[in-house]
């Protein structure tokens, strides 16, 4: 899937650069806006159907909510700091930070709301985040602790990077990782929209 994603965006860039006339591009943007609504609706179905998380939470205790809390605050503060470095608007840097590593969604959403450049930054940020996460998980699990291995993964700690975290830690941390991913994933569409609209 990762390859398909990279290839489809590269083919798109090629088409936009060499092939497509502006009329096609503007009508494609309209279709894309509608598809985004459909996509977010489908994401919502996943969010609403995740009832198992309450059972999981009861099992391991509410204390584990500290992990997603740290991941959310950490991503927002980190985004804010880097935004200052480049003199970017506060709402934009917070919105980029709240992608939480889910590159397919936050990039698309911010392109729709804030234009091509912001969309591209959000997309690439989360692609880099995933690459770094894959490298960091085993190192963090070994040098710091199992919970910290969940930190870089963000929203992906429930699917893409869950097998890696499980392998580097233990089954209990895997459950925490899953809970963390569900919470962060559910919040991505909400927080990206919320923070972008602050500006």
């Amino acid at each position, binding site marked *: *899937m990762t390859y398909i994603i990279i290839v489809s965006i590269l083919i798109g860039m090629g088409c936009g*650069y060499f092939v497509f006339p502006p009329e096609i591009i503007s009508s494609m943007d309209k279709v894309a806006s509608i*598809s985004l609504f459909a996509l977010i609706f489908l994401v919502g179905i996943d969010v609403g159907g995740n009832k198992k998380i309450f059972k999981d939470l009861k*099992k391991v*205790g509410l204390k584990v909510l500290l992990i997603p809390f740290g991941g959310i605050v950490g991503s927002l503060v980190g985004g804010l700091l880097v935004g200052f470095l480049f003199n970017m608007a506060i709402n934009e840097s917070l919105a980029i930070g709240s992608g939480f590593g889910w590159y397919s969604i936050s990039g698309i959403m911010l392109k729709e709301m804030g234009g091509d450049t912001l*969309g591209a930054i959000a997309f*690439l940020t989360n692609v880099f985040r995933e690459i770094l*996460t894959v490298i960091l998980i085993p190192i963090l699990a070994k040098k710091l602790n*199992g919970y910290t291995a969940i930190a870089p993964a963000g929203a992906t700690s429930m699917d893409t990077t869950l097998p890696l975290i499980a392998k580097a830690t233990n089954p209990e941390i895997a459950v925490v990782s899953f809970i963390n991913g569900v919470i962060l994933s559910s919040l991505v569409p909400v927080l990206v929209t919320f923070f972008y609209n602050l500006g």
Partner: protein
Amino acid sequence: MEILIALVLGAIVGYFLKLGEKGKNVNGKLQQLGVIFLLFSMGVSIGADKDIIKNLPSIGLKSFLFAVGTIGVSIVLIYILSEKFMPKENQLHKEKNLNLDEETIVENANELLNEACGEDK
């Protein structure tokens, strides 16, 4: 902001619909299709935008630093919080005093992993 309406509507539908494994798979596949199309169209806009193509190195650098920054602060915070407040690994269920034996936990985790297989962000 309208996007949030789509999310909330979806969540309500998802809460009452009770999708089975099959339904979840179909939903996942549809999402993948949507994502592929939307990323393709994002690629088209980027490719057609000569400014972005010109600025790609600086956009790449910004993005990389955003990734490092968000990951970095998350690691520091979660490390501090977990060292201070969380039970040592493997002790989670013991601290909660639950009659959760090692086997159930392993079973649980395997279930999660099976669910996650083939999914992608």
